[in-house]
């Protein structure tokens, strides 16, 4: 690797201070699974200083708060997989976490790092986007909260500003416990990026698709929602046919590319199938009165 400097941050405040101090040449290092792999093959100059946040304990943790389900940016994929709270309230996120890379990657890689890489195939993205996650950002001028959809700007580009740090992800209270599911299709079951991934959720206690949400990965410059499919589903009686149709509509909303992993046509087919499966997976998690219990 090319030479760079290194400082370790004690906590999020310290990290922001360090980022501000070292300016443009500084780069946040969390689990390093994306950043270090990237640096090793990159023709570009390395960052001047790595601001290592991996010891900032306040960036860790999964908890229910007044705002909703809070997941610290530094929470590793393994911690998400192992969390009883996630298993209880948001199993779709564990479904996404458990298929990221391999055990070794999941033990180091963090959810914040995953979102911040902002690659369209990121596995944490669809579920969080479908559940209207908010992200908290800490910067030199304080904290701000934005919808996750506004974090994503383009491939490998987020809306984070100078010396800003992603602190936490919050699933709003209204969506905590919403039946949802995640689907990924890669060339292998382990250690493979998604050709397409998808998450879907809806309240189904009354036999109809209520507040349906569908999000897709690896089919557009960023992770996207499928608003037409959502609108079509809303209020319809739950049926397999409707799930399949929603999948077909969702495919019309994506703009996948052809690359060495798959052709655009293949990805369009995958969207239809994965959305259908994600809806079916969410349906399997529907229980009566779920929504009332949640809020």
């Amino acid at each position: 690797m090319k030479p760079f400097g290194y400082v370790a941050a004690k906590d999020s405040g310290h990290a922001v201070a360090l980022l501000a101090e070292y300016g443009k040449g500084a780069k946040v290092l969390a689990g390093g699974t994306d950043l270090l792999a990237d640096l090793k093959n990159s023709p570009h100059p390395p960052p001047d200083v790595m601001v290592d946040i991996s010891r900032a304990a306040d960036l860790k943790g999964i908890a229910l708060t007044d705002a909703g389900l809070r997941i610290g940016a530094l929470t590793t994929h393994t911690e998400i997989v192992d969390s009883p709270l996630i298993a209880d309230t948001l199993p779709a996120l564990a479904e996404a976490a458990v298929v990221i890379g391999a055990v070794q990657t999941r033990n180091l890689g963090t959810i914040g790092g995953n979102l911040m890489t902002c690659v369209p195939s990121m596995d944490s993205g669809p579920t969080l986007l479908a559940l209207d996650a908010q992200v908290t950002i800490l910067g030199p001028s304080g904290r701000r909260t934005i919808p996750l959809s506004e974090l994503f700007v383009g491939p490998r580009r987020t809306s984070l500003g100078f010396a800003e740090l992603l602190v936490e992800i919050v699933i709003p209270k209204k969506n905590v416990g919403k039946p949802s599911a995640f689907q990924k299709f890669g060339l292998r079951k382990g250690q493979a990026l998604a050709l397409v991934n998808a998450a879907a959720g809806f309240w189904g206690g009354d036999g109809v698709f209520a507040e349906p949400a569908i999000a897709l990965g690896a089919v557009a410059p960023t992770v996207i929602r499928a608003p037409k499919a959502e609108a079509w589903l809303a209020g319809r009686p739950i049926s397999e046919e409707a799930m399949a149709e929603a999948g077909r509509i969702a495919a019309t909303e994506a703009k996948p590319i052809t690359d060495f992993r798959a052709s655009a046509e293949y990805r369009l087919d995958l969207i239809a199938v994965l959305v259908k499966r994600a809806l079916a997976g969410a349906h399997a998690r529907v229980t009566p009165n779920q929504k009332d219990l949640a809020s």
Partner: protein
Amino acid sequence: MAEDLLERAPDVLEKPRAAPVETLRRADEGLRLPAVAPPTTLPLEPPLVPQVGEQTRAVGLRAQRPDSRYHGLGLTRYIDDIALPGMLYAKIKRAGISSARIKRIDVSKAEAMPGVQAVLLGREIPLNLFGTSIVDQPLLVDEIVRHAGDGVAAVAAVTEQIAQAAIDAIEVEYEPLPGVYDPLEALQPDSPKVHGGDTNIYFKKLIRRGDVEKGFAQSYRVYENRYTTPGIEHAPMEPFTSIADWDANGRLTVYASIGRITLARVDLSKTLRIPISRVRVIGTIVGGNFGGKNEIRHEPVLALLSKKAGRPVKGRFTRVEEFIASTIRHPMIMDYKTGVTKEGKILARQIRMVLDGGAYCSFSETTLGKASILAPGPYAIENIHVEGCVVYTNKTTSGSMRGFGAPQVCFAYESQMDEIARDLGIDPIELRMKNFFREGSMSATGQVLHSVKVIESLQNAARKFGWEVRS
């Protein structure tokens, strides 16, 4: 930088001696302990190693490798686990362009870098060519780049990091040349010629038996299909790594993860123009070969860097280099024409195949030969015509890989057997049984076969994988 360090007042002088001596002494305990000494000699029974002259039963026993103890302990010394005192690290600059003429190459910035001990260009290599049959592959390209993985310069430096920085600082100006990337296009008269001359074909093979035209005329049906297989990288877990040590006595010792030590010695002696008696090659335990580590790759380059620098030099391929600058399995295009009777007996088979050899010859001759000989499959066929050739393209070199062409043709003929079975409505196993070699059958090349067990093997296999109960 170095001067700054010297001008600065040393830390130790500044430090007030506030802490008690005991604490100070203990502070660096971790540095004082030597590196963890692994338990190299365990007072345990050694693994089962067959003794000389001893007849051991093998079939039905759990196979135990004689080297498995060290594998499990992590103590097997692969080449990359070896470091010689004063060793330097080498890196090779890859062309990154698949067909070009080098107009200018400037290594001055690399040479000027602190820590760089030697820079090498192709023209400094006494015989800058190697190969197992056609000697056509330069170790470092001087003029014409024939594929993106061609090396154009090499550097040895005190660390891998500095060697890489030096490689990045080498400037090369290329004049792009037209290239050919498809083996069928490479056959065309007007295609760019990878090695000049008037053709890209560098080996041909023809095998004939009987009269295929007569066989086709007598056939109930004739099937014509094209099969293609892609290039495949061996991807051994251990990347190519070697250490060259050209000592002050003028003797060269090369430690290499290489499968053919004698061939390596010959190639080193030829390319470096030194007597073979001066070349010692120590083969280390190979971390996966699969045919990809059968010939030299960067060893003469490392040797010359070592000679220039007067220090041992290690070179290790990155995973990327492993894919672009080693060899791969030959991609093949195979046209099969097979005539059969109504009952499924094969009367004639004609095969035309084109092997994509990539930029250089390597083991193409052997591969073409073996593929051609095995192309008709394990079937007794009276009329056979096999015609094959291997062509140059501006791609990664194809070389030896397990089977030397046999898996490619097997994919083709067995795929066609299935298509014939489906079309004739014959059970695919039965179709094969009808045509298999039998004791005393003659192969396409005229070899009379003995100990033919193919029928029993397939019967056995079919029983074991439950062919009877298939849906």
